[in-house]
């Protein structure tokens, strides 16, 4: 009998990143999310007769920024084309996109895969295009409602080579691009609002086979969790089909998160025939070396470089650096916190510990944290100069979170200053020793390896009596002196 076939998965991704411009790609209508239906769809977006699209300069600059950040080629001439198809949310009957001469081609991204290995994912191209409107199929009783506010929003479609071999790699690539576009400040990355969406092309083939299998395209993927689930589900479906003697049909499938399944989107046999041709309304865009030079200077420190700097210069662990750099808002917060006290490790711990916990609990973005980076930085400074202990700091943090003021005033008001006065601590120890004569005797008579248990008990008593304000290191030293003396 033959060995069971080993299958290899092949995945390519198309990401649509909405560029963070104020106005649309070809018109002066606003791109703000959540406006009332059709109040941000102007004559150009509606494709009314006699209008002419005019290209938004920012959209071009943002695409160039992305291209430079992935080491891609940016041709001197970039051309817009019409992609023709009929759908009610596409008012002109064609989408302005790019076909030949896209603004970005042949870039690279490095991702981390299993066992911390690195893998290069090739980016075939990234092109500019306008978004379509939104169809609402549920609310209108047998009709579809069309909202054209989104029509004309600038999109950068980022197309990868089929270089990924499982859902985890796909997610790793997606997160990398997500982080990158946010660092570059060209996309807000908001997946719920559809500013960052993804279609996945998935196929399977026997491992030893060279040619790729028939692929399906999964649409409607708007969270990392769903994308991973949808790809895994689709791979399984395709393998089952082939193993039971059937074939995979090339088609578009829609992911249904509620049922965790994909289903065919176009039932009718309707091969797309987009008839691309250069848009006669738009002249080619000229991108000079000077423009590229200016844009290159606007590129901030990117996540990979930042991660390496955190490890090599600040001495943070790989884990800490990964967590702090994935999101530029967190990295900015961290760097501001560091300014106040220079202690990278302590700042990292507080940000990833108490701060993250509080932010998650109340679902607050770090940019809107009630405890600002400066406040946290100053508080950490007060731990370092021994004004408060790490334990008391938690109380101070909570008070700052509840908007009771800055660390220094909270410490004053609540009388939380650490007791570092030796005579005060000595007095406390004397009281504890006098109150616990039995334990003192046991301590003195027990073998050396049991003594630590009693020390912990006495320290506990001291901290309790001082309401946590005694400096534990000083208390520990003094206590041992007294008990052994």
């Amino acid at each position, binding site marked *: 009998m033959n060995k069971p076939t080993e299958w290899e998965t092949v995945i390519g991704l198309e990401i649509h990143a909405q560029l963070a411009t104020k106005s649309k790609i070809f018109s002066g209508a606003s791109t703000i999310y959540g406006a009332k239906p*059709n109040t*941000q769809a102007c004559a150009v977006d509606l494709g009314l007769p006699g209008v002419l699209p005019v*290209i*938004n300069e920012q959209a071009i600059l943002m695409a160039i920024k992305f291209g430079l950040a992935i080491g891609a080629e940016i041709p001197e001439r970039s051309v817009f084309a019409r992609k023709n198809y009929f*759908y009610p949310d596409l008012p002109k009957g064609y989408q302005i996109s790019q076909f030949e001469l896209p603004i970005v081609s042949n870039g690279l991204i490095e991702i981390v895969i299993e066992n911390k290995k690195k893998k290069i994912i090739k980016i075939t191209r990234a092109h500019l295009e306008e978004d379509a409107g939104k169809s609402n199929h549920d609310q*209108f009783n047998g009709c579809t409602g069309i909202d054209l506010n989104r029509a004309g929003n600038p999109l950068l479609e980022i197309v990868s080579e089929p270089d990924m071999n499982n859902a985890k790699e796909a997610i790793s690539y997606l997160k990398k691009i997500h982080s990158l576009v946010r660092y570059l400040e060209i996309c807000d990355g908001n997946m719920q609002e559809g500013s960052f969406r993804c279609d996945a092309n998935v196929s399977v083939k026997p491992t030893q086979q060279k040619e790729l299998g028939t692929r399906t395209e999964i649409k409607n993927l708007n969270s990392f969790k769903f994308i991973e689930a949808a790809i895994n589900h689709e791979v399984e479906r395709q393998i089952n089909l082939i193993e039971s003697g059937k074939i995979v049909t090339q088609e578009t499938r829609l992911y249904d998160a509620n049922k965790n399944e994909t289903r065919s989107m176009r039932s009718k046999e309707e091969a797309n025939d987009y008839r691309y041709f250069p848009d006669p309304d738009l002249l080619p865009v000229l991108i000079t070396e000077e423009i590229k030079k200016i844009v290159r200077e606007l590129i901030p420190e990117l996540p990979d470089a930042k991660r390496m700097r955190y490890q090599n210069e600040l001495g943070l662990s790989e884990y800490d650096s990964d967590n702090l750099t994935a999101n530029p808002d967190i990295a900015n917060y961290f760097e501001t916190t560091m300014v106040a006290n220079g202690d990278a490790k302590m700042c990292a711990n507080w940000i990833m510990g108490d701060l993250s916990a509080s932010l998650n609990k109340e679902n607050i973005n770090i940019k809107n944290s009630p405890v600002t980076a400066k406040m946290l930085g100053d508080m950490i400074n007060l731990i370092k100069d021994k004004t408060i202990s790490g334990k008391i700091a938690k109380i101070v943090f909570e008070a700052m979170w509840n908007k009771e003021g800055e660390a220094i005033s909270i410490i004053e008001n609540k009388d939380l200053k650490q007791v570092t006065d030796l005579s005060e601590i000595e007095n406390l120890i004397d009281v504890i020793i006098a109150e616990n004569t039995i334990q003192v005797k046991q301590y003195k008579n027990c073998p050396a390896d049991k003594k630590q248990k009693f020390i912990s008990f006495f320290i506990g008593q001291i901290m309790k009596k001082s309401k946590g304000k005694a400096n534990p290191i000083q208390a520990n030293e003094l206590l041992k002196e007294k008990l052994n003396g």
Partner: protein
Amino acid sequence: MSIDKSEVEKIAWLTRLAIDKEDIANYCNELTDIVNLMEQMNSVDTTDIAPLAHPINLFSRLRIDKVTETDQRENFQENTVETKDGYYLVPKVID
């Protein structure tokens, strides 16, 4: 090269044009003539000529990223058949 009946029907479908059956033969001839003209042009040697994306050999002017449009929904929706709650209504497009 000639354009046959099935191609005319496909083009009509793609462009959503309703055509009369008896006109199809005529369209076949006319479109064949156009395609032949293209082929005639294709036979010219263009080895040393740079491709042109647009008959006007200039580059595009760009617009500053600024919101200049105001809400004109009411005006625009006067031209349409049916609207509700600000949406344009069309026959249901999903099965």
